[in-house]
């Protein structure tokens, strides 16, 4: 038995579309670093309070000038909070959790990663617009999950808080 002519055209069209999608994803991954945050690093959640980086997480500027923000997500807040960062500057967020799984989502942007106890999520994001953004927890984490909101202010002055 044969496949109907129109159905064959449709199948080639659908297959072609899928190939086009995958080619676009591959090209952007290779040339523009469009990749999901996939950092692999572990940390002990049981002793997180004494951890040099996450015990008292603070924004820091590395020797090469990069801004790095360690974030500890904990029922029901993000620490440090509030944050202030300069516009048009790459910011590296390093996120972990002290208890259950939380989400870290800068509302209105695609800065979005899971905060998982025992692991460190890391990604770099550049704010293009000054203003105040909410950081929402987007993974159910308990009774006050919805109220787990932080703030990040993006300032106009390059350099910002140092």
């Amino acid at each position: 038995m044969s496949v109907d002519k129109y159905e064959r055209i449709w199948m080639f069209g659908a297959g072609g579309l899928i190939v086009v999608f995958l080619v676009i994803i591959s090209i952007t991954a290779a040339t523009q670093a469009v990749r999901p945050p996939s950092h692999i690093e572990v940390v002990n959640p049981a002793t997180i309070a004494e951890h040099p980086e996450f015990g008292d997480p603070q924004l820091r500027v590395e020797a090469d000038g990069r801004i790095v923000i360690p974030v500890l997500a904990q029922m029901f807040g993000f620490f440090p909070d509030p944050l202030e960062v300069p516009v048009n500057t790459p910011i590296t967020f390093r996120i972990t959790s002290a208890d259950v799984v939380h989400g870290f989502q800068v509302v209105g942007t695609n800065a979005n990663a899971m905060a998982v106890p025992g692991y460190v999520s890391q990604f770099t994001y550049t704010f293009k617009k000054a203003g105040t953004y909410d950081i929402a927890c987007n993974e159910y984490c308990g009774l006050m999950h919805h109220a787990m909101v932080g703030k990040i202010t993006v300032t106009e002055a390059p350099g910002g808080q140092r």
Partner: protein
Amino acid sequence: MSGTGAVIGGTPQARLAATHIAVAVTAFAVAACMGVLQGLSIADFEFPMRSEQLYYISVTAHGVLMALVFTTFFIMGLGYALTQAQLGRLVGLKTAWLGFWVALGGTVTAAYTILTGQSTVLYTFYPPMQAHPAFYIGATLLVVGSWLWGGVVIASYRSWKKDYPDTPVPMATHGILATIIVWYLATAGVAMEMLLQLIPWSLGWVETIDPIIARTLFWWFGHPLVYFWLMPAYVLWYTVMPRIAGGRLFSDKLARMVFILFVILSTPVGFHHQFTDPGISAGWKFAHTITTFAILFPSFVTAFTVIASLEVAGRLKGAKGLFDWIGTLPWKDPFFLAMALAMLSFAFGGFGGAINAAYGMNSMVHNTAWIMGHFHVTLGTTSALTFMGATYWLMPRLLGRQLALPGLARLQPWLWFIGMGIFSTSFHIAGLRGLPRRVYSASLAGEQGGAWADLAQAGAIGGIVLFLSALCFVAVVLGTWLGGKRIEAPAFEFAVPLEPVTEKGLWDRLGFWTIVGIVLVILAYAYPLITLWMTPRFGSPPFQPF
């Protein structure tokens, strides 16, 4: 070919199938009441007893009852009915009832711990949030019951194959068997999560748990789960819907190919749910992206074949123009109407799915209300509305009773389609604006609602329309079951293919494709899981949600 046109109403097999569907409808009714209250709560409408605690308990119950109980019991009942109708046998009726009681016992146990507030972990139950051990054990028993169901259907197929060694298995049974293979491949993941991680940890036998391994095993199960919901809907669209419309199945061979593609592609895709998880390399996320896009293909083919089958129906009724065949279709038949609107919803759901699968765009919508909007238009409409329509078709055939309240049965699919259109569109947009999913109140800590408060309110209105539709559905089911006019049970009739497959071909070699499916699952998961296992890691102690 045996089976086509079989009457099974009144037999013990019909009673078995009908009992499963009764449990499914009960779970649906309870979950629907909770759903409407959640919609109101998110939109900040005050009502008596509104509280954070009740909200999160009800989100857990709604998710478990709709996504796991309603679907599983319905699919088990449908699978029994179609197998009996097409193969003329169910081998192991006692095992089937054992499976039913195991699944029901597990469901009641898990539901009890949820409703008493001891397992408010949502239906994704991500550790280290910890539920009562009976929740995990109950959920496992639900799965074990469904495994027995799969075994009974497979045994029936093997027995039939002995009698008809050279005949390709009838199309609907082929689809149900493929569904069962996907279900075994999928549940292997969650069974490992339950038996190796969650149950020992919840009983206190081990102190800590690895949340990333647990999430990986969960999504090994969690994505093929959606095909477990979708494939029975496809079975009905391919084999019953054209029959009701008076058409033919446009391509028997391609329908078989579609189900086999699901068998091999539905499971090695889970990392697209974990794009933003740490601990999993970008390379493996990319590998799963490829398979995720590949699985769009069988759905594209389905769209063509099913619509072409319906066009055949219109042409047979004399339609000549480009589109006038659409008007000739039986839009007044509640079964057909529900299927057609469910298919239309899936067009939107499929586009949304392609967006979610591309991780650049996924970052914008991951864990936002968009996702909630997405699975309500896919599971919540494509599968659920198909199952509701199928209940209208099954009840007379299983119970020997005429469908009661036909006016309500005709109104119900429209209400569901419209309600879900409002609900899902609102939450898709709200999610794009950044509203996180699973929140008690859209104003979050109190002052964040500005960008999406109106959308959450629109979503609540959609939820009320959906609830009215659910009431219609439950009224029709109860009315038919208890007071439907007794009739001679109609026969199960299936669409005749334009060109029937008369010889067994490549797409009928279910055993071979199962092996291919297993190999792909191993390729997709063995390396990442072993690497995770070998890495020195720190487990998490349990936390109770409240």
